[in-house]
Every structure is written in C-alpha cells, then in structure tokens.
C-alpha cells in the first residue's frame, strides 16, 4: 500500500462540457459534445464570437474587440488562440494583434505583453513546461517554443511544407498533406484532401476537408465524422 491516503469528498458535479466549438455553414460557432463514436452539435453562439473555450466552470470567448474570461473583460483587437493546461488549470490566451498573452486562472486574468511575437500564428498550445506556437506562410510552417516565465521565444525546428498543421491540447504537432494526416507515428488516410486542422479538448483534432469534418484522436485509429448543421 502507498504512503498516501485519499478520501472521496463528493461528486462535485455531473455536467457536460463541450469538446470545443465548430464553425457551422451559417458562419456561427456551435458547441460540439461527445465521446468517441457519438457527437452532437449544440446551440449556436452569438455571431460576433470569433473563438470560444469552456474550461472548468468558466467560458472564455473572444469578440473582435474584447476577450472575456468568466467575469474578466480585456479589450484587445483581433482573434485569440486558447491553450488550456490540464496540469494546472490555467488557460493561456494568445492575442496576436495586440501582441499580448493573457493567463486565466479561476478568479484572475493576467495580461503579459509579448512584443516579439512572430506573424501568422495559427496554433498555440502548452507542451510540458513550455508553450508552443506554429506559424504559417503559404505552405511553409514553423514551430516555435516560448518560455512562459521569460516569454522568450525561439524556433523549435526547421520550417516545413504541408497543406495544414496544428497543435493538439498536449502541444503535439499534427500535419496534413493531401488526404494524409500525421501526428507522431500515427497516420490517417481520409476520403478527401485536408484543408485545415483545428484542436478540440480531450485530445481530439478536427480535420476539415471539402466534404466532411473528421474527428481524429491519437488513441483511435478510426476517424469519425462530425455532425454538421445543414443551412
């Protein structure tokens, strides 16, 4: 037996957090719920929301002018990229147009200036002790590592060419070339060429093609089709 002892306090809550938010054909973001093999689309968010994340009891979202994290409001233009960290409950929010990085913890939103952000950031995640981000220019991608204490940043490898790339919530790199999606040693061959990759929670990645949105996860060799609201 181990030296520690655990007690079950109470079941704090039975709830249903979304896996993420997917943009529907009508242009609005909708929550995606589900487990492997069973997914459903929730109600749409207001039109002005560019990006959203539900994290614990808090919902974070970005409009064209404001970042809202629970009760905190921070004015910042442009889009936002969320990097939740399951190991400590923090959410890092990159605001590329403002050159800022916001760190949310329950009850607190801290803003940090990051003046040397590269341009064209398409992905952002926490990977171990570091933050990772990926930039894209045409078909050329570059991954960077950022120190979350000093905010110093450096390329974490040579640039590469692909059709699409992103980071999952664990900071692992996913790339796509034509119909082939790759992450680590895993490969998926989809029905159509991949146009974009987008991270969701629980390790899921959305691979968007011309005909479908596939849901991929490293622990599953099978790909799933995400429901899509018909206009």
């Amino acid at each position: 037996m181990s030296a520690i002892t655990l007690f079950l306090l109470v079941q704090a809550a039975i709830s249903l957090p979304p896996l993420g938010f997917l943009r529907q054909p009508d242009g609005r973001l909708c929550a995606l719920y589900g487990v492997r093999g069973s997914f459903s689309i929730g109600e749409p968010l207001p039109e002005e929301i560019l990006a959203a994340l539900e994290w614990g009891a808090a919902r974070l979202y970005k409009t064209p002018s404001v970042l809202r994290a629970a009760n905190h409001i921070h004015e910042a233009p442009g889009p936002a990229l969320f990097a939740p960290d399951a190991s400590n409950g923090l959410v890092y929010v990159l605001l590329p147009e403002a050159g800022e990085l916001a760190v949310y913890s329950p009850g607190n939103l801290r803003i940090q200036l990051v003046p040397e952000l590269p341009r064209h950031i398409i992905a952002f995640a926490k990977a171990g002790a570091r933050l990772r981000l990926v930039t894209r220019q045409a078909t050329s991608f570059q991954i960077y590592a950022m120190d979350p204490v000093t905010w110093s940043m450096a390329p974490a490898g040579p640039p590469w060419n692909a059709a699409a790339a992103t980071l999952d919530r664990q900071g692992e790199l996913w790339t796509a070339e034509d119909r082939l999606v790759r992450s680590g040693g895993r490969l998926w061959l989809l029905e159509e060429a991949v146009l974009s990759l987008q991270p969701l929670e629980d390790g899921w990645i959305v691979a968007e093609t011309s005909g479908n949105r596939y849901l991929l996860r490293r622990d599953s060799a099978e790909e799933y089709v995400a429901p899509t609201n018909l206009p």
Partner: protein
Amino acid sequence: MLRPQTFHKARLLLILLLPATVLAQLDVLTVTAGEERAAGGLVNMGSAWTGEPLDVLFRVRNRGVSLATLSTLTIQGAGFWLHQEPGTPFFLAPGFTLDFYVRYLSEQPAGDARGALRVNTATITLVAAARAAPILYAVEEDGVRLRRAVGQSTVFPPVERGSRSVRRFLLENPHPSPVSVVVISVSGDSFQMPAPPAAPLRLASSETRSLEIFFQPATSGLKTGALILDDRRYPLEGVGREPPFPRPLLSLPPTLPSATQARIGVRFDSTSRAEGSGTLRFEFQPAMTGPDDPAIVFPATNRRSVSFQVRSGETQALFGSQTEAIFQTGTTAGRLRFIAEAGGFTAEASVTIAPSTAAIDTITALRGLDILDLTVKGYDNTRSASEVAFTFYDRDGQPIEPGDLRSDVAEKFRRYFETAPAGGLFALRAVFPATGSTVSIAAVEIEFRNQAGSRRSERIQF
C-alpha cells in the same frame, strides 16, 4: 307570274316597304390575318388539298344606328359549307358584328369550284380550288384506319424513356390520276422515320404506301413532332415515362453498440433503370423516458433523414458519391427503425441498441498538492448509473489507501439525466483530498454500476 320588269318593280316596292335599316346598314366582309376587306360580289377563297378544309372568315357588321336583322344566311355549291353559322333571324345592334366561316372541302380535285353565299338579299360568289393529295391514315393495332387531317394530332403509346413505340401510317391515292408527294419528313427529336420512301413519292390511282414512325424519347415528359407531307403538317404526340424505380432494400445487424458511427446502404432489388431521388430516415424509440438523444443522427445532415440518388445502371443508392450513409447510434439504449422511400416503395429495417454498462471515454486529472481533481467522461446508455467506485494506484502499481472509494450517485445521475441534452453522455467530476502528495498517484480503475450491471474499467494511467 311576274315578268322581269314587273319582278324588279315588285322587289323595289318590297325594299321600299321594309324598314330602311334592314337592308342598307349591313356590311359583309372577309377577315384575313385580322384585316377586314369588303366581300364585294366575288370572294376567291384560294386552293386546298383534297380532303383538307379551306376556311374563310366572314363578318357581317351593322354600320347603321338602329337594330338590323340578318334574316337570310345560306350557301350553295358543291363542297361549300357554312361553319359556325348563327341561326336566323339574327338581330344585330348598331356597331355589332357577326362572324362565321365558309368552308370549302372537296374529296375530288377541282380547278374552279363555285359557290354562292347569300346574306339577306346580297349574293356573293365564292371561288375555290382543290389539288389532288393522298389521304393519310393512322393504322391502329387492330388494323382499323383512322383518317388524319392536317393539324390533327396522332398520339403514340407512352413508353419509358429510352424505349420505343411504333405507329404505322398509310398513304392512299383515292384519285383516278397519280399523285406525288415531294417532301416526306418527320420533325421532333423523339420521332424518327426509319425507312422514309424515296422522294418524290409517286402514287398511282388507288395505290397505298405504308409509313412507319418510331417514338423514342430520350427524356420523360410530353414530346411533340410532326409528319410533314409537302406543306401539310400532321402533328405527332407521345409521352415519355420514367422507368419504374427499383424496390429499395435495407439490411442491418440485429444489434449495434452505443457510441458507434455505423454505415447503412440502400440496395435495389434490380439494377435501376430510373433516375431520381429518395429519402432514408430513421426513428428512435428510447428504452427509457427522458430527453431525446441529439447524437442519433446522420452526421452529414445532423438530422434523422438524408436524401439519396437513384441512378440508372446502379444497384445501390448514392449518398453524394458514397454508397453508404454514416449514422450514429448515440448514447441511449433503444431501437432505431430505418425507412427508405423511393418511387412509391418503402423498405424498413430495425436495429436494437442494447442496454450496456457505463463506458468511460476519457479521464482528466488535475493534481494539487493535497487534492486530486478527476473528471471522468463517458456515457451510460441506460441513464441509470447508481454507484461508482474509484481505486487509485501509485507508480509501483500498488493500491492507494483506502482501496475502493465507493459512492452512491443514483440521485445525482437521476437529476442530471432528467434534463441532460446529450443522451447518456456525462462528465463526472470527483474531488479527492489526500493526506500526502498526489504526485505519486499514477493510475485509477473506475467501476460504474447501472441497470445493465457493473463494469470495472481497465487501469487508466494519468
């Protein structure tokens, strides 16, 4: 008996005795292409083919200021007829007109046929001619011959698109002299004359010649064309039908597990000759009461119906470019009843989503120094979870005190599933205070109990 002079005097007297309005105020006109022309004493009606009517529109107008009476309207002469004539007497108000047709129809050739049209006291000489032409018959299947007139449609038996029906026609020269047809052709994309006679076609007296015309429409719908003999046009009509749809067939396994993206196709009982569309839909009968399961859909439409295409030459329906549609079994036990509908046919198949023990999809652990915050995501397709037990293990694989941490969760799950909008999905968050550091906690086994039984998960590392 009156002599001519006396007769003229008597007639003059009669005219004087009649109201002046009756005689002098009626004009007799011919109308051609909307243009009126005074009929005068002679009207040349022109020339027609034998057996074909030649119609001229006449108009009588009351140009006076009082009521006029048309008391006489008669015609004389072989082949001349009044057509759509009014009965007499006919009263015409001032400014009003009366139209009727004079028809010339002759079965025999005539170079200078004469007739007389009488309107009250006025007599108009009618001149017409008839040129010799063969008679056209449509021959019925039983051999009966139906004479065809110019402008009169002949209807072909309806056929499926791409198939053919045939009608036979007969040209007969009823005249004592030979007749010739210079132009023999068929118009209309759906009509063909496979073996047209060499033109000009010369028919001796009493000679007949058979013509065969095919109706073979490439598409469905009403099709029109014409058999053209010189300047005579005999309309042809036919309807192209869509071939009947094949009967759809569905097959499914008797049971499927929850949380599955399964595939279903619609096969046909024979190779389709039809083109069209159908619908595949399904209904869900949950095994328990409660909110619907929104994951039980075709992901492509996020609905419980999807359309499919029926293509000629195919043995299966097409969903876009695929022969199968993906559907989700959701996370609620029950029965799915699929219905395929196409061309008036329906096919059904059902599959049972059997009740099962709760399943775990992911576990997220948040470690504090002396607390472990665990979120377990999974589904319970019976919506009846009643008990959960956690057993934690350290990095050496040893159980952590006190072993099984068991909790009654029946009421919490019951309240949750009463309103949960996502079938049997749930995310259970449990908090575990610890007497020592949580860093050494490496894995957990979780056991859920519901109406289908209890199942212990494999050891999950985190």
